[in-house]
């Protein structure tokens, strides 16, 4: 467990007791990357900010439900955000969303300040490197599953590929990611 995760765990414990200072610190540490993930999934800045509010409201009210044996605090926050964003995405008309993305409403990334930016840059480099090790088909399948919430069958339909092929691409791609990602990221 690194120092960052240790601080996160302490903050989560304090937020569970309704410590406003701890909540503020948790927000400053994780809001930029969470909003980045929401913007990537939803492709709409305003909607992403709405979901960000929902996510942090959930953190404020349900921090006592966080289970450290299942995920890190950051992982819990990001997966809460991903889950809520995918719920929103599923409610949208898929064709409309594609048009909007092409239309340029893609959220403009705003550089965050402080350590979050440095850590983010490092992670981006490492994950980008790991993703480069994947074949384009493997990367595409993983991105469709992770950022668009599609299942094996839906990915196969989207890519017009056999179901077994999609399953293999995801399995092989995830294993390759595992091998490439370095320990400091954990």
């Amino acid at each position, binding site marked *: 467990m690194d120092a960052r995760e240790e601080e996160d765990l302490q903050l989560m414990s304090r937020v569970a007791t309704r410590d*406003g200072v701890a909540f503020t610190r948790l927000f400053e540490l994780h809001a*930029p990357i969470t909003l980045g993930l929401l913007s990537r999934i939803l492709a709409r800045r305003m909607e992403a900010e709405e979901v*960000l509010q929902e996510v942090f409201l959930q953190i*404020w009210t349900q921090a006592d439900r966080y289970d450290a044996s299942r995920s890190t605090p950051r992982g819990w926050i990001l997966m809460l955000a991903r889950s809520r964003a995918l719920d929103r995405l599923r409610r949208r008309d898929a064709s409309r969303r594609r048009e909007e993305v092409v239309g340029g409403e893609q959220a403009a990334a*705003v550089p965050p*300040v402080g350590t979050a930016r440095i850590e983010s840059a490092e992670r981006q480099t490492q994950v980008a490197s790991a993703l480069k090790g994947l074949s384009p088909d493997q990367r595409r399948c993983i991105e469709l599953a*992770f950022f668009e919430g599609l299942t094996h069958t839906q990915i196969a339909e989207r890519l017009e590929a056999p179901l077994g092929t999609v399953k293999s691409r995801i399995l092989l791609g995830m294993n390759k990611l595992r091998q490439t990602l370095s320990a400091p990221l954990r």
Partner: protein
Amino acid sequence: MSDSPHSSRFEELLPAYALSALDAAELREMEEHLAGCEECHRQLRLWNLDLESLAASVEPVAPSETTRARILRLAGGGTAPAVPPRRLPGWALFAAAALLAVAVWGVAGQLRLQGVLERLTAERDRLASQVESLNRDVAQARDEARRTGQALQVVADREVRTVTLAGLEAAPRASGHTYVSPRSRGALFYAHDLPALPSGKTYELWYIAGGKAVAAGTFSVDPQGMGNVKVENVPDVASIQAWAVTIEPAGGVPQPTGAMVLKG
């Protein structure tokens, strides 16, 4: 507990499970197995860490000040770092200007209404005064009509007796007439060219019957020297020996004390 033992098949399903990419049948199968498999839980945590890295690899985006303030207000606001002041956006200035205009319009409207209200109040008071004056005129007209009616009743009596009064030394140009109606037992007295009296004095009409002076009423005169008295319950005309007018203290007296100005 899961009935299915840990196997490579479940290990292969785990990455897709972590991605939420499993279809319904495989998802159900995986969840049933996970309920009792510690090894799969351990591996799932590792897959989740990989996905956390994937999620955190996106470009960070700084939340807007509005979103930040809203979220931190959840935790009481006071504990959050202060949000730096910033210039109002154009729409906010426009909205503020619109609100100000509405407020000014509202105040101006109120002043206009207040002016209208004051004018209406003044008009109401003026009309009320007019009505009061008209009521007085009507009452006066009714009184005059009533007196005229009574006078006509007196003079219309075909047995009416007329007595002429002549001015004496104190008012030699003055004259007077008394009309007595035996039927109604009423009398009307009219005086002409009597001089105006000083304050505290009044003219008083008398009739003499049985050698005694009986007070018949007081009166004043107008600028032309005219005055009149209506007398009721006049006794039998034959018993009245004379009519006279004297100058008496204001309010009248039961018996004559002042100078006589008319007699007939």
